[in-house]
């Protein structure tokens, strides 16, 4: 029987990466070199997902709720700094990440302390959403919760692989747009 909970993050990552590449391809369809490059990149990315990736099923624990709260806090803090203090999104997310990285030093023996900085930083990426697109704090709150939830689902997937947290944030933001679109229709 296929390992469905373990495979779910893989399906999410494939959907997100191929949606991103398809959008880039559609946008550059009139540029032959760019189209060729993006098709090649899509094939290579497909080969990455065809390789054997061992994904054990995630084991959920009550402390995971704190990771969702941390991601939401990271998203709101970044968005707030960006909006209220006129900081660039990069600076706001960087400050949020920098502040979160102090947490493990408070209690070096705590496992939770080690889990919170990636969750906050992941949420911070969701908080980088342009204010014009987000429309306000409600959207960022939703994006933070969905990002945190996706982070928990993907806790055993692609650990130590660069871009994991950003892809999850992208998924959280996209899912939030989809939820709002369905609610408004």
């Amino acid at each position, binding site marked *: 029987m296929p390992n469905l909970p373990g495979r779910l993050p893989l399906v999410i990552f494939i959907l997100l990466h191929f949606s991103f590449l398809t959008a880039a391809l559609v*946008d550059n369809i009139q540029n032959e070199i760019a189209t060729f490059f993006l098709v090649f990149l899509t094939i290579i990315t497909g080969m990455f997902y065809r390789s054997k990736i061992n994904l054990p099923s995630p084991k959920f624990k009550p402390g995971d709720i704190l990771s969702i709260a941390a991601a939401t806090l990271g998203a709101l803090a970044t968005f707030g700094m960006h909006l209220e203090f006129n900081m660039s999104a990069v600076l706001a997310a*960087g400050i949020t990440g920098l502040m979160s990285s102090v947490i493990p030093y408070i209690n070096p023996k705590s496992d939770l302390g080690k889990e919170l900085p990636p969750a906050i930083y992941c949420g911070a*990426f969701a908080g980088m959403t342009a204010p014009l697109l987000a429309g306000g704090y409600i959207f960022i709150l939703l994006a933070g919760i969905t990002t945190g939830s996706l982070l928990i689902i993907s806790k055993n997937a692609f*650990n130590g692989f660069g*871009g994991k947290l*950003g892809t999850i944030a992208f*998924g959280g933001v996209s899912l939030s747009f989809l939820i709002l679109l369905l609610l408004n229709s």
Partner: protein
Amino acid sequence: MNFFILIICGLAGALSTFYLNNRLGLGGVLASSAISVISAGFFFLLPGLTSSYLTANIPLVIMGTSFIGMASQKLIQNAWVIAISGLLFPVIFLLSGSFFEGYGGSLGTTAAISLSAVYVISRFLIRNKTSGTAVKK
């Protein structure tokens, strides 16, 4: 010219984060956020130093490539994989189009695509090199 500056920034962002993360043992979050704050803080304090295009895009490219540098050395043993991914990132970043513009996480998605593509090619090259050596023996 702007393109080459972004390429150099991509290389610098990925390698410096990878060094801070793995060699100095700072961890991915601290390494990436420190590099992002330095790059964005520099242009926040000195906004007129370069053209508005570079002022807007250099911090984005450096932060995006810092996500590549967050990779663990246990997984990516060769620093050149990080370097090539850092060079590839600005190309994808510039081609990423307008559909997902302003979406949080799009830099990280670009970073993951860059790294996975270079990772696949590196594994292919290493496998061919190993099989080539085996044939020679």
